[in-house]
């Protein structure tokens, strides 16, 4: 695939988009798993919300 004389700028743009979106995605998945683990630990200790009684 020949992207012409400005290929480096094109690849850098797509690389930046891929990098930022992957970081965002990994952070969201990690954060979701962390919150679920914390919630599970609290429930294991028998803690219940007031509305849940």
């Amino acid at each position, binding site marked *: 695939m020949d992207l012409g004389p400005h290929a480096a700028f*094109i690849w850098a743009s797509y690389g930046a988009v891929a990098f930022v979106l992957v970081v965002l995605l990994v952070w969201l998945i990690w954060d979701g798993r962390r919150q679920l683990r914390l919630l599970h630990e609290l429930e294991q200790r028998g803690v219940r919300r007031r509305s849940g009684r």
Partner: protein
Amino acid sequence: MKPMSTDAQTTPQSLTQRLANPTRFMELSGVILPWLSALAAGIILYGLYLTFFVAPPDYQQGETVKIMFIHVPSAWLGMMGYAMIAISSFGLLVFRHPLADVSAKAAAPIGAAFTLLALITGSLWGKPMWGTYWVWDARLTSVLILFFLYLGLMALRSSLDDEALAAKQTAVLGLAGVVILPIIKFSVDWWNTLHQPASVVKMGGPAIHPSILYPLIINAVGFSILFLALHMKGMRNEVLRRRVKALRMAEVEQAARGREASTAASG
């Protein structure tokens, strides 16, 4: 605690009230999110195929037009993210919608990421096309201000421990900052800018050849669905974070009650 009125117990909930319930949101989003993510991935992959194997080089920009296929959707979504924050802020301040602050908080880092990408890809397009990475023209500067607004919203929220106060203050800033959106949109008409005027969303239809417009639209749709999926995931995380916080508070209360009971028994 005052007992609920008979009306509140018997009146059927409206659709908005039912969707406002965080538990119902978690159930619904848990079903939708995998499908939304798969749809976004499929459309983005198709968009990349069109970008690198189908779309012709532009008669002026050459292959550099490929940067536009990600720059334009990033810029649109940077603005859409802020519009989402403004609508959510309005929903919080006026209707006290239980999920409005969750939505505003989740949209901020995602909108900031897309605005940053619009700035980076714009610079990388500008160097070969304009001969410079950056100029202080109205469009570029107003998008940079939008990025700083996102950072300001996140900094303000994280600087306040009281979550209800943080929600209100960021909602006020979010609503006040919405003035940046028409400034960005019309900056190319109001001032002499190096940035070209609107060429897709304009009176009289797009000024782009269909062979370039089609991949651009496909990428824009794919990235928009990705934005919605990321936002939904962010909202789910925030609902879970608030549940964790509520349980920790309940744990502290239980421990305090236990101490009081043992003190009373020993006394």
